[in-house]
C-alpha cells in the first residue's frame, strides 16, 4: 500500500518487534494446546529457560534501538509521511492490543517476568511516539478557523477519503 521509503526506521523496527510479539504469543498458545503435561514439563525445564534467555537479550537490544530512534518532536512539513507513520503505529496496537501489562505481569510466571517487562517498555515507547503524532495532528483541527457556517473537514476525514498513493502537490 505504501512505498518503503515512506516508513521511518522507528516504525520499521516497531513493526518488526510487533511481529515477534505476535509470533511469541502464537508459539506459546500452540505449545499449551498441543503439548501434554509430561512433555510440557520437560520443555519447561530444558528448553524454555534457554529460549527465554535469548528472547530477553534480543528484546533488550530491540528496546535500546527503539529508545535511540524515538523522537517526540513531530515534523508535519512532510504530512503524508507522518500520517502514514501514525497509521502504522496504530495498526501495531490493533494487532497486539493496547493492553495494560501491569496486570499481566502480576499474574505471569516468574520466568517470563523479565520478558514481559521489556515488552511493556517497548510498547510504552511506541505509544509515546504515536501519542506525540496524534497530538500534532489534532492541533491541525484545533487551529482550523471555523464559523457557524464553515465547519472545517477534519484532518482524519480528509486522510480517510483520499487515495493514499497520490502525493500532495500543494
Amino acid at each position, binding site marked *: 500500500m505504501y512505498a518503503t521509503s515512506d516508513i521511518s526506521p522507528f516504525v520499521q523496527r516497531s513493526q518488526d518487534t510487533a511481529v515477534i510479539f505476535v509470533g511469541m504469543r502464537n508459539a506459546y498458545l500452540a505449545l499449551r494446546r498441543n503439548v501434554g503435561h509430561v512433555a510440557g514439563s520437560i520443555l519447561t525445564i530444558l528448553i524454555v529457560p534457554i529460549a527465554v534467555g535469548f528472547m530477553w537479550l534480543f528484546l533488550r537490544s530491540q528496546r535500546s534501538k527503539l529508545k535511540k530512534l524515538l523522537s517526540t518532536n513531530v515534523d508535519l512539513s512532510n504530512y*503524508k509521511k507522518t500520517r502514514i507513520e501514525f497509521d502504522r503505529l496504530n495498526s501495531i496496537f490493533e494487532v497486539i492490543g493496547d493492553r495494560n501489562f501491569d496486570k499481566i505481569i502480576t499474574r505471569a510466571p516468574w520466568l517470563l517476568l523479565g520478558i514481559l517487562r521489556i515488552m511493556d517498555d517497548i510498547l510504552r515507547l511506541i505509544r509515546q511516539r504515536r501519542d506525540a503524532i496524534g497530538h500534532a495532528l489534532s492541533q491541525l483541527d484545533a487551529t*482550523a*478557523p*471555523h*464559523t457557524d*457556517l464553515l465547519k472545517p473537514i477534519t484532518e482524519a476525514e480528509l486522510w480517510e477519503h483520499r487515495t493514499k498513493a497520490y502525493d500532495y*502537490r500543494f
Partner: protein
Amino acid sequence: MFNTSYPFKFRMSEKVEGEPYHKLHRFAFRCKRNERYAVLLEEYEGDFFGIKFFRNALSKSSKRFQQMTNFYDAPAVINTCLEIMRYKLKENPRASFGFTGAPLESEKDDVTKPTKRFRLYKRIMENLFSPERFVHYQLEQANIYLLINRCSESPQELAEWATEMLRRNYEF
C-alpha cells in the same frame, strides 16, 4: 490520472468595480482539440481567489459553466487549472481558493444531491491539497468548496469574511 496539463498563458489582470471581487486575472490555454479555454481567477480580499474555467466558444453563453464538451479531456483541463493555482501560489504563498461545481443540464432540477462536478473536484482537493497547508471546507448544499491557506494573514478573519459573503449570495 492528473499528470498531463496544457501549457497556459497569463493574459491580463484588471481592476473590477461593482463586483464582490476587486481584481480579475485571466489565463488561457488550448486543449488537445485546439479548443481554447479561459480560466478566471477572481481576487477577493484577504488573498482569496475564486477559480472558474470555461470554453472560449461558450464565453457569451449563460450555460458556459454547465455544458459538457464530450471531449473526454477533463483530467488534463482540470490539471491545467491546478497548475494555474500553483502558479498563483508561487506568486502569492498566502493565496486561498474557492470554487463551485456547476450542475450539469440533467442535474439542474435536483438540488438535493451534490453535483457530479462538485464530487469530482472535492476528490481532487482531498488528494492534492495537504491539510497541513490548507483548511478544507465543503458546503454541499451549494456545491461550494473552499481551501483556506493556513499561512494567510488571519485565517479566522478570512473564514468570517467568507461566511458573510456566502450568506449574502446564497441561501443557507
